[in-house]
């Protein structure tokens, strides 16, 4: 491959005012451009890996700069990299970047640093994607989600999953390639049992990945509870809407949706019909079915009950208990859940915090969402193949077909990261079993 001759530059901190702004340069001229634009106290500035203080000249005036030099190949991109930490004033930063471009730097295209890092073999595909998402993240919470991907959240999960799937394959392949006397014959039942455990882990990863992807869109929070528990009143208080409220149980039939900003993240709040055995037929019956569907599709269900009544003993996961109308209760509301009053506004801020915490609100950027979809597809395909392997094994079908399905499952996972060569497989077999006559 031809050495890339260009030196790229970009503002590495999010747009808008911050205390500090960073311009990053990468390429053969990165350090040279630093010397041309900055005046340092130290004579040996930028001569090696390190940080130097000095002043940056943008052609008009000058500003203080902290320059971090990372000569290649031991840098993020594998090229010479220079980071200029400047005061976070948008006009000054823009002037500095313009100066660098005037001296020959090229404006980096989105993700170009990451691409260079990937091409120089400094990072693998999954990490590259994480970094890309990080770069393009638009808010702090987005950056947290991207960081999770980047620093091994997904990587670790996949690695563990891949390991257990590979183990399963090793058992299967060892049974195929060696005598039972060698490998200590693994019964099909054990294969199935282990397979089911892997499947459960796969399912969990899939759920995690799906939730992560969905957070790219607005999280859906659904109000649920017995009829006339005060859901709509709470809905109006939280969203500023005007749903019809009355003391007649079953007033709300159609689900109402309104935007609700939680901890700075736009969410959707859904008001549904109260669930009751009294409304099993007619239009109310329809409303009940819709309500149930909404509950199932929700990222979080707010289980609303009257503060004066005893709270439910058991809450399913993904549900948060809300004790409504606490203003009508005698004294402070004890027990679990968040006590709120739509009338006095008490507890509403607390509820918002609890929701943010429960949902782990980290909406991903467009890039991260797209990645997520790719991962979900790969995980789903892997699960499909694993199911096939399990079905075959349960039916005591031929082991070579079970092995083939497992191979295909692993191959799907490997589409995300890494690959297992036949040599890897044999290494594992030899490490575990005493093979050979």
């Amino acid at each position: 491959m031809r050495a890339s001759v260009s030196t790229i530059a970009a503002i590495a901190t999010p747009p808008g005012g911050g205390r500090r702004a960073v311009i990053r340069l990468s390429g053969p001229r990165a350090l040279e451009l630093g010397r041309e634009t900055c005046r340092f106290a130290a004579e040996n500035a930028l001569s090696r890996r390190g940080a130097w203080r000095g002043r940056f000249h943008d052609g008009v005036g000058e500003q203080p700069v902290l320059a971090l030099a990372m000569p290649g190949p031991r840098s993020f991109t594998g090229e010479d990299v220079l980071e200029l930490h400047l005061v976070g004033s948008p006009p000054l930063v823009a002037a500095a970047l313009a100066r660098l471009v005037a001296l020959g730097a090229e404006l980096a295209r989105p993700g170009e640093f990451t691409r260079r890092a990937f091409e120089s073999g400094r990072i693998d595909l999954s990490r590259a994607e994480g970094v890309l998402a990080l770069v393009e993240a638009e808010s702090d919470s987005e950056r947290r989600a991207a960081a999770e991907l980047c620093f091994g959240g997904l990587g670790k999960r996949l690695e563990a999953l891949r390991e257990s799937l590979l183990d399963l394959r090793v058992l299967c392949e060892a049974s195929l390639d060696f005598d039972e006397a060698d490998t200590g014959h693994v019964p099909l039942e054990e294969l199935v049992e282990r397979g089911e455990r892997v499947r459960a882990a796969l399912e969990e990863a899939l759920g995690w990945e799906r939730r992560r992807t969905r957070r790219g869109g607005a999280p859906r929070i659904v109000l649920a509870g017995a009829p006339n528990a005060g859901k709509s009143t709470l809905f109006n208080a939280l969203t500023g809407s005007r749903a019809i409220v009355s003391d007649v149980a079953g007033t709300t039939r159609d689900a109402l949706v309104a935007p609700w900003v939680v901890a700075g993240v736009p969410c959707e709040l859904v008001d549904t019909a109260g669930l009751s055995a009294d409304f099993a037929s007619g239009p109310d019956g329809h409303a009940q079915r819709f309500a149930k569907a909404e509950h199932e599709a929700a990222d979080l269900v707010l289980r609303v009950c009257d503060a004066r009544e005893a709270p439910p003993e058991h809450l399913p996961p993904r549900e948060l208990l809300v004790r409504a109308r606490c203003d009508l209760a005698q004294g402070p509301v004890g027990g679990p859940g968040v006590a709120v009053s739509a009338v006095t506004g008490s507890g509403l801020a607390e509820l918002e915090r609890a929701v943010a915490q429960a949902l782990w609100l980290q909406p991903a950027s467009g890039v991260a969402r797209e990645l997520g979809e790719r991962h979900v597809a790969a995980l789903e395909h892997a699960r499909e193949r694993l199911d096939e392997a399990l079905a075959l094994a349960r039916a005591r079908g031929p082991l070579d077909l079970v092995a083939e399905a497992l191979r295909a499952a692993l191959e799907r996972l490997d589409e995300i990261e890494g690959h297992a060569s036949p040599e890897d497989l044999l290494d594992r077999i030899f490490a575990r079993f005493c093979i050979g006559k």
Partner: protein
Amino acid sequence: MDPRPEATHAHATPPAHLGARVLVIGGGHAGIEAALAAARLGVQVALVTMRADRIGEMSCNPAIGGLGKGQLVREIDALGGAMGLAADATGIQFKVLGTGKGVAAQGPRCQSDRHLYREHVTALVRAQPGLEVLESTVDGLLVSERGGAPAVVGVRLGDGRELRGSAVVITTGTFLRAVMHTGESQSTGGRIGEGTSGGISADLARLGLALGRLKTGTPPRLAHDSIDWDLTQAQPGDERPQPFSFATQREQFPRLRQVLCHLTHTTPRTHELIRANIHRAPMYAGRIQGVGPRYCPSVEDKVMRFADKEQHPVFLEPEGLTTEVVYVNGVSTSLPAEVQHEFLRTIPGLERARFLREGYAVEYDFVLPSQLDRTFATRAVAGLFLAGQINGTSGYEEAGAQGLIAGANAALWTLGRAPLVLARDEAYIGVLVDDLVVAQPTEPYRMFTSRAEYRLLLRSDNADKRLVPKAAELGLAGKEAVERLERRLARQAGALALLRALRSSAHGGKTLEEVLRRPEIELAGLVAATPELAALELSHDELASLECDVKYAGYVARELEQVARLRRQETLEIPRDLDYSQLRGLANEARARLSAVRPRTLGQAARIAGVRPPDVALLAIHVQRARGNA
């Protein structure tokens, strides 16, 4: 997947004055197949061997085939080779391994009468027109310059004579600088009672070929009448023995009386004795530098590495019908003789065993096979081909397969014809070749079914379908083989048509084909219940193959999709002169591995350990860009 990348040989064909003569050095399993294949393609062949009475010797265990290996034998047979026929003619126990694990995992295996096997193979070699056998050692290679590159023009024999040839196939097995170890004692030689070939080793190194060192071992041999057979467990062969060769007459099979093998096991006392003497084993005392195979470990390795196992199986295999020699499979060892005597007596049934020969380890030179192309021609020297254990492999079947490919290609090259290159989705032999030329072996290479990603396509039952047409086109297989295949396929097609036409009322009116797809349904049962099918009188082979075609159809289709998907990667050729040190962005490990192996295609690059997907992606970008610029 596509022989195109090597459609032209790396070197120009030899000048006419050398004559169309292929020299094969070595009369082992690789040498035999090499000589026979070359002769069948119509060139003169001289097979030079140290001992003409040892052609086709089974140096280690008296068995052919097994898991992954039986498939190789069937492929050798489909390509016109001798191994399958010889095994069928001399087998004294036949057993298909891996039954119950699925058709693609099954590998036929047999115990052979060692003596008769050698006789049978020697007779095949003697009967082959155009093939002469020369008993002599070989001292070195005759090499001249041609077009600025070294080219082999013959060999120098032990008595100083020169033997000229257009191509040389070296198949010297474990005989290159071979050292045998038994405990503290060492002797030179590749097999008990025979010498070593040091001259060739030195010449190969002089020609710039990198050599490595490997180790293999063999167990003790015992006298039949000294074993207490009642204390062992009898292991019969299959009730209905199946031959290897598609050509073997089913009516006259098996030809020889069938015998039993026996099973016993090591005991805690055996392990104790081995542990107490472990410092006297050459591997543990550091006297052997070569690396032994993990899949065929010595008994001392088993005991040391798997300390928690209380016993290891020991198989007692007869070496023939008329010999008293019993091969003790499972206790390969290079411990001192007296330790071997002592520990073997702790094994049930062997308490009074009389040794006919102690076990020993052999250490030998091999050529790093990444210096070969997929025809087994060396890249460094025109006309020089290598096959068998010299390429770092183990096993008769692996050797025979390589011999056939190297011999055929030596002849094709001599004749100026297109080479024979098999792809990974065509044959286990294709997998073997492809693995070897990108391998950096640290132990002798042997075949496993898990090495073949297209295992469901490469079954032993369809080896003829996969390879006979190609063999016939080249001239390796005759008209009878093609006719036999066509007959079989026609009969199977007839039966399949019936399966599709007939419906089963017991299964809700489904066609028999649909019924057969269910795991619990067997074709034999359907045939028994369906007079129309029974009337076709399908043979065992035909039934098995048809059953497999139907049951595996869906999975095979998926593998074929995968083949198509990867075909582009497999055919994307990497320029021979690519300088990986100039390729920006490769991870260091990948750079080192790629520079050492020099893969021919992107597919090969992807299979190299240490080369990660980003490296392959990078390489792909580069190769495509280089093409775009060209």
